[in-house]
């Protein structure tokens, strides 16, 4: 028997909800599939609710608001309209299609219209068939907390802590927030107070930037310890501390679904040469999604993959690419969702093998680390030669296969992203490439390479006043060098810095406002 579409409807209190009531009062019947959630204004409906609803298996989401101009809150409905459009882009990209999400203006007097719209929407959904993600609810399988922790203590050298405090003295967060101290987290756990630790916020405050473990004389790998803690730490606390309402991680989880059919290649410029198979594969990462999610930061993130492809073509490489590329799973791994991470790892591995590629080039340090370090660990084998674009380019330069022909006269300061730098020890290749661009002068911040500090946020966790201070601090440091342009190899740094600019600042905005650009984009600009 055919399953009935399940529809979640968010109706604004003043118009749409009243309209629905009227339909009832007027005894106008409409399909029973709809489940109404009353909100004060359609502007209240967060994309995260919608995406969340779909992850939970809704076949359609309906949003009803007042007609333009009638909004009880003046312009809430217009806000909603923008968001819905934006969310529809996400949905089509992830492969659900825009039509499963519907926004309608329904006034309090339009009971009939309400019934009509719902009936029609239900019909369409019937045609579309059930939400492929139905029943993809990822209830965490139970894990033995004590075991996880005691193993972590050994595995990550936490047991060897000498209580010297060098970690806390290095941690960019501890510096601005005394309440957080890696040392104290470690000592409490060692003394057997792990419950206290896991139910607190500390586990989620760590930037996992690896500065502490870079310096720890006892080689305590605190960020890895934290990663393991997060597997068994309170999810409630995590959800409270999760930035951008967790859309990125939600999307990642959705991608674990084998049935998924994404449509994510529309950024590819006409004339760009790519192939489905080939020796060198370019792994784009979540940038297309970010471009939508962080639309209002106007980051032009899509320039990154476009630039990469441009450069590759320029040196005669037609990179293989996955049209249905899945998230590498980095954020899931670092927020403690090992199960889903493993799923993604497996599917990615199989998809990647199909391309017959031997080399994987990434423009994102997170994908880079995840492929190079974490996949081999969870999968046992992952025999691809994984390169960050900066490594790839500097190799080309060495081989004389790449020469920058455009002269750009600018002073550039390079920021080492934690994932590329301390996590993977890639410090010199980006610098090498940048310095080989004619007319570019490379400046260094006092804290560079292994001593660089984090952009301020990772895995979209704990975006708060402290992480803001860290971000501002780093931007100031960059600005102080007198450079015109701040270059990073990680799109996330840009997101978090730009995000800072959209919020209330701990300091004067011009002290931190700085032109920034991705490494790949800069490199591409240096080519005619």
């Amino acid at each position, binding site marked *: 028997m055919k399953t009935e579409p399940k529809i979640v409807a968010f109706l604004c209190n003043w118009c749409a909800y009243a309209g629905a009531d009227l339909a009832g009062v007027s005894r106008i019947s409409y399909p029973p599939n709809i489940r109404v959630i009353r909100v004060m204004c359609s502007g209240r409906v967060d994309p995260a609710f919608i995406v969340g609803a779909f992850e939970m298996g809704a076949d359609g989401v309906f949003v009803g608001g007042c007609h333009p101009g009638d909004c009880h809150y003046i312009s809430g409905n217009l806000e909603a309209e923008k968001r819905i459009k934006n969310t529809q882009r996400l949905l089509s990209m992830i492969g659900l299609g825009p039509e499963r999400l519907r926004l309608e203006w329904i006034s309090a007097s339009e009971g009939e219209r309400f019934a009509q719209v719902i009936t029609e929407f239900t019909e369409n959904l019937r045609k579309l068939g059930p939400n492929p993600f139905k029943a993809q609810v990822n209830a965490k399988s139970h894990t033995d907390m004590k075991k996880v922790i005691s193993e972590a203590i*050994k595995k990550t050298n936490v*047991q*060897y*802590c000498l*209580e010297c405090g060098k970690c806390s003295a290095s941690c960019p967060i501890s510096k601005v927030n005394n309440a957080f101290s890696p040392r104290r987290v470690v*000592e409490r756990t*060692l*003394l*057997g107070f792990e419950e206290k630790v896991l139910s607190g916020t500390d586990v989620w405050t760590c930037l996992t930037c690896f500065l502490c473990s870079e310096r720890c004389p006892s080689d305590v790998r605190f960020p890895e310890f934290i990663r393991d803690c997060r597997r068994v730490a309170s999810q409630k606390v995590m959800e409270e501390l999760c930035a951008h309402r967790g859309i990125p991680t939600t999307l990642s989880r959705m991608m674990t679904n084998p049935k998924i059919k994404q449509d994510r290649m529309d950024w590819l410029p006409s004339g760009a040469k790519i192939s489905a198979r080939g020796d060198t594969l370019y792994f784009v990462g979540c940038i297309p999604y970010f471009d939508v999610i962080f639309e209002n930061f106007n980051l032009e993130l899509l320039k990154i993959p476009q630039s990469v492809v441009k450069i590759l073509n320029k040196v005669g490489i037609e990179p293989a690419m996955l049209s249905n590329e899945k998230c590498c799973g980095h954020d899931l791994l670092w927020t403690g969702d090992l199960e889903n991470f493993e799923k993604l790892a497996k599917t990615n591995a199989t998809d990647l093998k199909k391309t017959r590629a031997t080399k994987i080039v990434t423009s994102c340090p997170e994908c880079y680390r995840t492929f190079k370090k974490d996949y081999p660990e969870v999968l046992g084998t992952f025999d691809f030669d994984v390169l960050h674009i900066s490594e790839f380019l500097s190799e080309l330069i060495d081989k004389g296969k790449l020469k920058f022909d455009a002269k750009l006269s600018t002073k550039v300061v390079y920021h080492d992203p934690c994932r590329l730098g301390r996590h993977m020890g890639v410090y010199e290749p980006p610098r090498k490439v940048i310095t080989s661009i004619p007319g570019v002068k490379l400046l260094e911040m006092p804290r560079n390479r292994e001593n660089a500090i984090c952009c301020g946020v990772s895995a979209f966790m704990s975006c708060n006043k402290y992480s803001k201070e860290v971000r501002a601090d780093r931007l100031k440091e960059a600005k102080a060098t007198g450079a015109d342009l701040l270059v990073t190899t990680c799109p996330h740094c840009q997101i978090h810095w730009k995000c800072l600019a959209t919020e209330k600042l701990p300091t004067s905005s011009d002290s931190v406002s700085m032109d920034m650009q991705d490494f790949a984009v800069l490199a591409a600009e240096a080519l005619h």
Partner: protein
Amino acid sequence: MESSEEVPRIGVFVCHCGINIGGVVDVPEVVEYSKTLPGVAYAEGNLYTCSSEGISKIKEGIAKHNLNRVIVASCTPRTHEPLFRAACEEAGVNRYLFEMANIRDQCSWAHMHEPEKATEKAKDLIRMAAAKARLLKPLEEPEIDVTPSALVIGGGISGMTSALCLANQGFKVYIVEKEPKLGGMLRNLNKLYPNMEDASEGLSQIAKRMKSNKKIKVLTSAAVKQVKGFIGNFEVTVEKANGKAMNFEVGTIIVATGATVFEPVGMYGYGEHENVITQLQLEQLLKKGQLKKPKKVVMIQCVGAREEKGRTYCSRICCTTALKNAMLIKEKCPDTDIYILFRDLQAYGTHYEDLHRMAQGKGIKFIKYVLEKPPQVIRGENGRLMVNVCHALLDEQVKISSDLVVLSTPLIQQESAKELSQMLKVPLGPDGFFFEAHVKLRPIDFATDGIYVCGTAHSPKDIAESLSQALGVASRAAIPMAVKRLKVEAITAVVDENLCSGCGTCVKLCPYNAIQKDEKGIARVTSVVCKGCGTCAASCPERAITMQHFTDEQIMAQALAALGRCVA
């Protein structure tokens, strides 16, 4: 001796030292001046008096002008006196009839821009030297015979090691142990870190070697009752438990009396609760295999050590002993929780640092506390012990209910030490341990020649450290015994018994106990023990003490000469 009676005939040799002196001081003028000085029979200048050529010049001079005093005016006696002294001796002039004038380091170099004044000063310096030279008396460095046998006091691992090493070097050794058996502290110990072998193993091996060695005479249940004499010639009286006394002569004495463990009566409920014990008692339980699986063990470090006053010192071995025993317990009962409450964990060097890490790896928990907030041990209602401690690095109170509390207490000096120190006239330090001649460069000698110290009698230390010292004293003591005859300092004090009133001031002042009152109550200098500082001479109320080679007359003569009041 007669050379002192005869008229002084002084030869002065003035060194140019290249241009180091010659470039500033007018050497020819100085030479001419020297000739005019009373008692000077000959003077010449040399390019380098210290060169082999210069040396032969001195010898020639002595022969040609039959000189009986020699002055070299050049650099500093600190480096060159012995060289020139030797030259004099070879030419038949007693080495103590030589005097030096330092006209380079303390004249030409220090006054490079004032040649005239420097030249004047050089003359004065030579005049002063001449003034002293006239009064110099020949001295002989007395030689003493050294009895080629040693007394080792204490039959612990240190004493035995010293004894064996000395015996193997061919010396007779008497080793005196108060207990009926050799072995000392080691007999109480269980396993030894790092190789975790039984203490008894090493002991039995050494005991074997002791027995088989014919040069070693072992005296157990015995104590040293009296020691007389000085280096090379000590007369020792030892009393056996059976009251029989025996006397023998030795050339050197080694103090290896070890230490004992502080008993923390009344601290942390020790002596009150039967399951509050000391680290040493734990060691015994483990040794005898009598430790019944405890659930939670708490070890407290620095019990009665590193206090504000009193026992302020660190006993060095307690932290590592605690670590070792914690590991042994873990080995026996892996699911026992062990807490070590420490102040500063003294796990130093290579292996101990590793031991600390191994303990961490075994899940042993470490809690730092501070002297101001010591842990408390109370008996909980369920009869178990409750240890409350303030975690100094979290500033949080931690409560541990435990069924065994182990107190790490320091090594302390034996009661018998005071008596021994007075018998041997060797000092005890503020911490009660024997006090060496110089903390830095003479760590195992006493200021008194011929007596040495090693092992935990000197300060708390582990076995390897004790043995390094034990072997060390085996070398220090062997030196005088190997050379058999000992030349000792000639520059010594002598007492004029007609002037001495026996006030005893000098006896108290002498840092080397070189002065004793004889039966007549007159001060007597044991010249072989005297080092010649002259403090006694400068302080003698009757001015009855003459400091040879630095007599009042000689020093005054120099002073007067310096002031141009030179009496011809």
